[in-house]
């Protein structure tokens, strides 16, 4: 089959149909036929693209050329010039001045970028992050100037509320309400914090956002400071991100030099400055109260809420704390409007979400999709499916606090509520694809190992409970599971969730509980059958040599514990008592003579 070179999206909304989009479709079909392009171009019809005034609208990818107000007569020209000669027809292209999706003009990568929508990552991968001029040239800091010129702090809060933006750190608290609470607290001393303490294994959204476009976070924070009446911002970022820290420092210095930070910003009465605080890399410091303690110089441990940081936060003062991704949305909401922002996404979750797609998937990477996109679209359309023809087994969202969803849940639309209903969480955006070669019990053990290690130890359920869960899981994966272990895990998990002090403990049992719920038979096989179907848990494995053995001796030479014996050119055998199940013989054998079971 010839490779598809172009994807054309035709708007099939009511207005465009009224403006003859159906006839245009016919002409397009005819022209493609005429030039023999039928196999190289695919045509998609889409719902209303929201550009009714300029309809009929047609988007050609790669290149993201939006043709507007086209007529049947324009089609031959577009086909000949754009599709055949690679020269988009400039006079018909709509040039819009919105902030989102600037990316698409630069990237010619159809499948990977086709379903994405870039708001927070709009500049990531197009501008030079170390040059403030690049950011300024793309309407950078215009949102700040607009706010300082014609908006009162109340209007800014109202705009953010209107957008429906919710916290991107994981819990999904409405951002506008948080701002309103903080704004209402008596001043004058208030703090604004950017939580860049990203700690989920396999997650790198915040790091990439800061490394790719640090100024958008800074601009968001200044606007936040203006809205709540604060003059001091702090970015709490982990010390393990040296390049992100360097770029952020450089960006802050450049912004100061341009009069965008410091006293009387852009000639107004508003003064604001930002400093960077480095975290030592404790996972619990991503929790807001622990983070605040860490900035204050105390041990990073959470405390019960209320009082919420909006009332009594850093040094007992009202504090507005948001995640990197939340901040990066702010300039877009101000310039493109809260109403526009709320038109993207689902009923309860607005805008887009960035995910770090990792694990057993062809296209690993950073993706930003509108809320409501299904998990299937992310894994198979954007991610390109599972490598090596293996089967999809589960998807893990939300890192060590999230759950693992099997294939029945692939059509779950991504929003805070749907994911919670399915038994996982949105989280900060880690997304790990798991194929049939992974053992769910072992994976659950990995996550609980992590949370157990990162538990700060303040409350007993989390400190002791995760430890006991790890012990039970270790026992099961070593083939020493006892009847009743699974039920014990369920009971313990439910208790830890209910009685832990902070989000770390309350969500730590999620990976275990969701795997028990969705993959109970694997647990049962481990406990009663002493069998690991994925062949991961070493204690339940044995390697034996079958009759295909030609006696080449390759396995004997590579075995690190001399567990393989045999005469040259005769069948070898494995001494099970000596074998440590490292699997090197299995990988070395060229004759498929070693069985793993």
């Amino acid at each position, binding site marked *: 089959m010839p490779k598809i070179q172009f994807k054309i999206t035709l708007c099939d909304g009511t207005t465009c149909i009224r403006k003859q989009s159906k006839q245009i479709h016919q002409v397009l079909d005819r022209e493609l036929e005429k030039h023999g392009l039928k196999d190289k171009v695919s045509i998609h019809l889409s719902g209303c693209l929201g550009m009714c005034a300029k309809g009929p609208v047609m988007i050609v990818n790669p290149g993201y050329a939006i043709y507007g107000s086209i007529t049947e007569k324009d089609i031959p020209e577009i086909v000949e010039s754009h599709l055949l000669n690679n020269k988009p027809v400039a006079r018909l292209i709509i040039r819009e001045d919105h902030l989102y999706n600037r990316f698409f003009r630069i990237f010619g990568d159809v499948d990977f970028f086709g379903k994405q929508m870039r708001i927070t990552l709009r500049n990531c991968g197009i501008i030079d992050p170390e040059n403030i001029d690049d950011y300024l040239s793309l309407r*950078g800091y215009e949102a700040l100037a607009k706010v300082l010129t014609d908006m009162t702090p109340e209007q800014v809060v109202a705009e953010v509320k209107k957008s429906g933006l919710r916290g991107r750190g994981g819990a999904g608290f409405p951002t506008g309400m948080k701002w309103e609470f903080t704004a209402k607290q008596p001043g004058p001393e208030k703090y604004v914090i950017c939580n860049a303490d990203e700690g989920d294994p396999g997650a790198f959204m915040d790091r*990439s956002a800061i490394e790719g476009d640090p100024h958008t976070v800074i601009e968001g924070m200044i606007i936040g400071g203006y809205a709540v009446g604060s003059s001091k911002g702090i970015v709490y970022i982990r010390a393990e991100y040296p390049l992100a820290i360097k770029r952020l420092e450089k960006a802050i210095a450049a912004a100061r030099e341009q009069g965008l930070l410091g006293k009387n*910003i852009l000639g107004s009465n508003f003064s604001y400055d930002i400093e960077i605080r480095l975290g030592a890399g404790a996972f619990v410091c991503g929790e807001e109260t622990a983070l605040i303690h860490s900035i204050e110089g105390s041990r990073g441990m959470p405390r019960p809420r209320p009082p919420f940081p909006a009332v009594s936060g850093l040094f007992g003062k009202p504090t507005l704390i948001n995640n990197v991704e939340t901040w990066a949305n702010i300039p877009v909401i101000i310039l493109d409007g809260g109403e526009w922002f709320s038109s993207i996404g689902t009923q309860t979750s607005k805008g887009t979400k960035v995910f770090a797609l990792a694990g057993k998937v062809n296209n*690993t990477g950073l993706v930003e999709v509108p809320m409501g996109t299904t998990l299937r679209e992310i894994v198979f359309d954007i991610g390109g499916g599972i490598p090596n023809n293996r089967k999809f087994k589960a998807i893990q969202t939300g890192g060590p606090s999230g759950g693992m969803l099997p294939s029945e849940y692939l059509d779950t639309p991504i929003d805070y509520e749907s994911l919670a209903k399915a038994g996982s969480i949105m989280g900060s955006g880690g997304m790990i694809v798991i194929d049939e070669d992974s053992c769910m019990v072992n994976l659950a053990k990995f996550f609980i190992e992590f949370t157990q290690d990162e538990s700060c130890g303040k409350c007993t359920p989390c400190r002791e409970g995760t430890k006991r869960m790890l012990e039970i899981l270790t026992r099961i994966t070593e083939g020493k599971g006892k009847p009743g272990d699974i039920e014990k895990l369920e009971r313990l998990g439910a208790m830890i969730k209910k009685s832990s002090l902070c989000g770390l403990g309350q969500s730590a049992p999620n990976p275990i509980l969701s795997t028990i719920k969705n993959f109970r038979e694997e647990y049962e096989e481990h406990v009663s059958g002493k069998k690991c179907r994925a062949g991961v848990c070493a204690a339940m494995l044995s390697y034996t040599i079958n009759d295909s053995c030609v006696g080449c001796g390759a396995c004997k030479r590579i075995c690190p514990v001399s567990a393989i014996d045999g005469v040259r050119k005769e069948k070898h055998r494995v001494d099970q008592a000596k074998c440590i199940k490292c699997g090197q013989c299995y990988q070395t054998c060229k004759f498929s003579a070693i069985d793993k079971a």
Partner: protein
Amino acid sequence: MVTPLDIIKKKRAGAVSRIISKGYLSTKRVYVGMATCEIAAGSKDVMEVFRQAMANGLTDVYLSQKGCAGRCNLEPTVEIVEEGKIPYKYGKVTPQRAKDIIDKHIKKGEVIHEWLI
């Protein structure tokens, strides 16, 4: 009275002219990915090849770094953008490939299709 909006517009104009004075309007613009992930995949060496070529008299090219575009499995990435044309994006670029890209694509306009994403 001068408003903050007026000031920012002036700043933007200044920024644009500074970028242009650095050669932004050259026929080809080359972007090399330089985030932690890209650097780990070897993009610093690739960047060096382009810098060297510029120092050795490669003209009509605007060279810049950029952040992570999200294509982790294909890094390091290099993009070549020409005004009015669909951008070309190379994946898994090594210093050797970078030299070939300079010789073939940038100097002679021959796109190396098998390395494109």
